[in-house]
Each structure stands twice: as C-alpha cells, then as structure tokens.
C-alpha cells in the first residue's frame, strides 16, 4: 500500500504541472469555440469541468477488471455500464424511469467511455484512471470489483475533483473511514450484509455456535469479518479460527485443514470471485461442508453457476441483486430482459451496480442542471428518493452510501430449479434503513467540495 500512496503522490505533483498546462489549453480552446458557455452561470472550473464537457460528448473512465480473480465479475460489470450508456445515449425508457429528466445522453451530451483492466490491483487502476482524467478529460470515473481498488480510486477522485462511483465493494471503509466527498457507493457492504443476515442465522442455524472464518487478506475481508463477528456476538457466536488467505489463492488446503481442525459448527466464507469458487469446491472435498454449515455473507456473482447447485443448495447468502427480484419489481424485469437480450445471460450484481450507478449519476446531473461536480454532489446529497430495479433507494448525504433493500437468497435444490439460471430462492428483502450503520459509526469524514 505504501508504494501505491507514493505513486499517487508523485503522480499528483506531475498532474499539478499537467493540470495548469491543460487547463490553459482547454480554457483557450473552449473560450474560442464556445465563447458564452464557459463563462455561464455554472460556476468556476472544477476538476475536468468545463474542459471535459466542452464538446457535444463527455467521456467516462471505467475500471472494470477483465483479468485476475475477479475477472468474471468485472466483465459482467462492464456489460452493465455498456447497457446503461447505450440506454442513456438512446433515451431508453428504463434509464428514464430512474432519471426522469433524462432525454438523450446526459444534459444532452452523448456519453463516450474507455475501460482499463485493473486486474483488481490499485496501482494499475490509478494509472488507468489518471490517464482517463488527464488525457481524456473524463468527467466521471467508475467501476471496480475490489475494495482496495475502489478506495484508491476514491482518493484519486477527491484529489482530482472528478467524481468516482464504486462498483462492487464490500469493505466498510469505502464509505466509512476512507470515504470521500467525490466517491459514491450503491452496493451492500460488510456492515449491512452482516446485519441483514443476523436474523436468518439466528433462526436457521441457531445460537451459540463456533465459527471458522476464511478471510481474503485485505480491507474487504477484514471489515466483513469484523462486522460478522460484531453482529453474531449478539447470538452467542464466537470465532474458533480465522484463516487469512492472500487474494488470488488457488490452493486453500492448508487454511481448510486448520478450519476443519478448529471444531467449528459454522464455516463463514468471505472469499469472493474465483477465490470463492476454489475455496468452496475444496471445502467440499475436505468434508467441511458435511460437518459445518456454510454461510456466505457477500455472495459472489456466478458462484452457483461455477460450483454447481448441488453444493449451493440450502446455503444462505447476502447479495445486492438476484434476477428473480423481477417478480416484485417491473424495473428489475425490464433490466433483466433487456440485459439478457443483449448479452445472452441474466445480469448479476456487477451489471446491476454498474447500471444503477450510471443512471443515478445521470439523474444527479440532470437535477443539478450542470456537470460541475460540486453541484452534482450536492444533488446526490439532497437524498432524493428514486425508483430503481432495487425498489426505492436514496443516497445518504453524510457518507455517500446508497440505502436500498438487501436481498437474502438461499440456494435451491437442483430438483427445484425451474430453469438453468434458477439457482436461488429470494428469502427476504430487508429494508435498507434497518441495516444501515448509524451515521458516524464507521468514521466517515467527507472531504471538501473544491
């Protein structure tokens, strides 16, 4: 991490140089081409405003991984962004249901985008995003599956004054200790997931259990573990062992042996992406799933497809979106069918988070009437309630965390599946307001607007 920080620091000083130059250039160009526009009542230059919206299009920089342990989730996420951008540019009904003032594009400007494969590595993400901000004059940046990447991008966003929207990020710190004025998160995280899961664990598994934790060794894993421990303490659960594994582990056998020997009743598996797939398959082979009840507090998209319904049956997971939510929500239905038509499979959480974040950004810009980030952020912070495929949602002003209902799902028996994608029952939708942390619990201090 220290290396990354150093990298950001040097890039910023270099950026400082570039900025003054490019500002002058952009300003010159813009004033000569659109004399009235730059000096309009929108306010002073801020970040890539107005340079990034001087033409009839705007550029958005994405950081969805297509390699590494989270590549499947990142690829799904990129497809969600692509669909949202296509919908915004064409004025599709679905996106206009979330952002009613939208016509075509955002504030009439067509959206263009670039994506950098971050491989879930913060340094690669910062390199790519810096390039988007400096060279492409990105007006907004978004996307990531790793919380380490999300937090690094948020910090960059704050320094560069270019809004960043996290993709999938489970760490409490993304909108907690590391929250930023320029960062926004839509999806569930350690605290909300654990709190939503608690009643189910109490009723279905019972009180006073010993738990073996398998934890990816970075901010996401640490904070999800902390939240799980904190909440399950209330029902008398205690940790028998905590096995920390590096991101991208392929053979989990030594951790699993320790877990098997711990005498635990419950196996809480926090691993995500390919790590989740490997650890679950191997846990099955070590007989752990026969002896312990597995709980997945942060469900990996595509997990059921990859490990098979035989293993997933009866297992409780918390997720951000599962496609059968379409039975309760028309927007979800439209989203699932349009996504499936374009991509040939049902969207998962990554695609949902991407689409929602993109549509909400458009909504905030339309309501602010400008791309200037200060006004856009204040539009978000007004906390307007929106209709989305997750039901009614609103953004919290104090930590930029979206409040929405949290779905809990349970793996179906193979014999009960009605179609090839019908892996989970939707057990409950926990109201979002009930599971959010108290406003100052996680230590969020948003930075300045300018």
């Amino acid at each position: 991490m220290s290396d990354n920080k150093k990298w950001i620091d040097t890039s910023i000083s270099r950026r400082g140089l570039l900025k003054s130059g490019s500002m002058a250039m952009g300003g010159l160009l813009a004033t000569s081409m659109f004399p009235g526009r730059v000096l309009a009542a929108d306010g002073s230059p801020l970040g890539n405003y107005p340079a990034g919206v001087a033409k009839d299009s705007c550029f958005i920089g994405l950081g969805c991984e297509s390699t590494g342990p989270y590549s499947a989730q990142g690829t799904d996420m990129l497809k969600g962004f692509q669909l949202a951008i296509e919908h915004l540019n064409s004025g599709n009904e679905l996106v206009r249901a979330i952002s009613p003032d939208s016509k075509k594009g955002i504030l009439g400007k067509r959206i263009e985008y670039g994506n950098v494969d971050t491989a879930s590595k913060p340094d690669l993400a910062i390199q790519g995003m810096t390039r988007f901000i400096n060279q492409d004059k990105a007006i907004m940046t978004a996307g990531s599956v790793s919380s380490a990447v999300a937090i690094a991008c948020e910090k960059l966003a704050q320094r560069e004054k270019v809004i960043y929207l996290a993709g999938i990020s489970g760490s409490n710190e993304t909108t907690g200790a590391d929250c930023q004025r320029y960062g926004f998160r839509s999806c569930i995280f350690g605290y909300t997931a654990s709190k939503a899961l608690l009643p189910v664990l109490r009723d279905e598994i019972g009180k006073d259990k010993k738990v073996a934790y398998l934890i990816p060794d970075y901010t996401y894993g640490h904070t999800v573990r902390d939240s799980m421990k904190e909440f399950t303490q209330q029902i008398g659960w205690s940790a028998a062992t905590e096995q920390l594994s590096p991101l991208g582990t392929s053979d989990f056998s030594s951790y699993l042996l320790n877990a098997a020997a711990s005498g635990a009743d419950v196996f809480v598996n926090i691993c995500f992406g390919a790590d989740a797939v490997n650890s679950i398959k191997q846990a099955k082979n070590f007989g752990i799933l026969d002896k312990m009840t597995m709980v997945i507090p942060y469900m990996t998209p595509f997990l059921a497809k990859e490990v098979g319904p035989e293993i997933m049956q009866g297992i409780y997971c918390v997720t951000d979106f599962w496609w059968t939510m379409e039975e309760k929500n028309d927007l979800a239905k439209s989203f699932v069918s349009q996504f499936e038509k374009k991509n040939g499979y049902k969207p998962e959480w990554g695609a949902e988070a991407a689409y929602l974040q993109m549509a909400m950004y458009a909504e905030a810009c339309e309501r602010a009437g400008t791309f200037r980030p200060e006004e856009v952020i204040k539009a978000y912070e007004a906390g307007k309630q929106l209709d989305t495929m997750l039901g009614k949602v609103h953004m919290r002003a104090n930590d930029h965390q979206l409040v929405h209902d949290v779905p809990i799902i349970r793996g179906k028996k193979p014999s009960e599946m009605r179609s090839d994608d019908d892996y989970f029952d939707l057990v409950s939708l926990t109201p979002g307001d009930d599971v959010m942390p108290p406003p100052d619990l996680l230590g969020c201090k948003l930075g300045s607007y300018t």
Partner: protein
Amino acid sequence: MFTDFINSLPPWGLVEAQMFNGLQQGMLLALISTGLTIVYGTLGVLNVAHGALYTLGAYAGFVAYQATGSFVLAIGAGALGTLVIGLVIERGIIRYYYKRPDEDQIIVTFGLGIIIVESIRAFFGGTSQNMPTPGWGQGASQLGFLQYPFPLYKIETIALSAIILLIFYLVLYRTRLGLVVRAGIEDSGMVSLLGINVFRAFFVVFAIGAMAAGLAGVINAPITAPTPDGGEKFLVFSFVVVVLGGVGSFPGAIVGGLIAGEIMTLTSLFYPSLSEVMLYVAMALILIFRPRGLFGQAGRV
C-alpha cells in the same frame, strides 16, 4: 509458563495433516518446476510462458473431459496438447532466440504467455470452469494415520506426480536422449563436435518442459478450477522453487518443491496470512546465503 506455551501449539494431529498436505502441494510444485528448470538448464531459456502452459493443459484436459467424460483421456489431452504446442512454439519461435540475449527470450516468452492466456479467455470467458473430481478420487480418507479426512483425489495426485517425475527422471538419466541432453547442458559445443545434433535433442526438451506444466495443470484442475489467470500464481511459485533448489537442477526442483510446500502449509498453522510470504522469505535467504540454490552449480544463476 511452559505449559501455556505447549497449549498454544497446534495439536500434533493437525501438524501431521499439514505436513502431509505440504507433501501434496510440494509434489505438484515439483512437477511444474521440473519443466521450468530443465528448459532453463538445457536451453538457457527462461520460459515465462510456463504459467500459461499450465493453464493451457488445464483447459485442454477440461475440453477432453467435456467431450469424453473420461479423466484419463483428459490427462492424456492435457499432456499431448501442451507437448504439441511446445513443439510448435520451439520450432516456430524459440529456436530463433537461443543465441539472443536473455532479455529477448524473456520478452518473447512473456508475450507468448499473454497470447495463450488471452486466447483462452476469448474462447472460454473469464469465469472458472467446473472440472469435477474423477469417480476414483471422490471422497476423503484418513489413510489410517491422519486425524482429519484428506481428499482422496489429493492423495492420488501425490502418486500421479511421483510417477510422472519418475518417468522424467528415467528419460533424463537412463536414456541416450537424456545423456545427450545432460552433456549438452555442460558443453553443447563439445557435443556438437562429436557429431550429435544437440539442438534436435533440445527441441524435445522444450516440449517435455511444456508438457510438465500442462500435466500439472490438468492434474490440478479438479482441485483448482481452471481460469485463464490460473497459471500466473504457479509461474511465480515455480520460480521460487527453482531458485530454492538450484537453477537447472532436476533433483533441486523436486526438493525445492517439497520444501516450498512444507513452508506454506506449516506456516499456516501459526500465521495463516504469512504462509505465502514465508516462501519469498525463504527465497530471499537462499539468494543471500547460497545464491546457486541447494543443488545448483556455482555460476549458473
């Protein structure tokens, strides 16, 4: 005081189980690493595409398994597939690089690795593939001495890896081809003067090296689901193993693999989060105190 210390130690049964687990992981690492080390030892080429060949083997096996449902055929396909690709790569590209600087060899094999991995990703996508455990590897066993059940298939991979390593040993140390190859490692100029086409032997060596990675990939596929990036970690591990055992040394790769396996599993008993880190610590220590590795010859680092 002393009893507190004793009580804080992991139970002996678990230590035993982890040592056995280290043997399993070590044998697999040994198998992958022999491929890397014999190619470097004979041809002087550091094959950075070795991890990609591991992935290729896993996918070749997966495709064969999908088509036939036979795990034995899957292993055959993994071995044959990487053997053939190895021959093609050697004839098509690598042979033009034998006399070029190390950096060129590293860059060309690095590029080859990217091409292989991205081709696999373009064709199969990024999600991991589900390679089931073969019927004869289902379930777990305690082998009469372990206190915890150990997956039967993992036990069988120890035997499988051992058999393959034994075959490699016999080829390298008990055949004429092996003699030429080993002599070629020492002094390829002198072997050529004896009227032996040493490069023809080398061409086979490269393919065998590729096959070792492919075999490891397909054997490991039911344990670690095949993904396009699956080989990356094994490339790094095999570098460590080769440095530990001594660059270019066949027995070194085996001993290095076993040591690496034991370091990772035994460290996990005390500090699970450090088990991989300790591997790199061991490598650093070896590089400081015995740069040639345990079995390596001086001057070949």
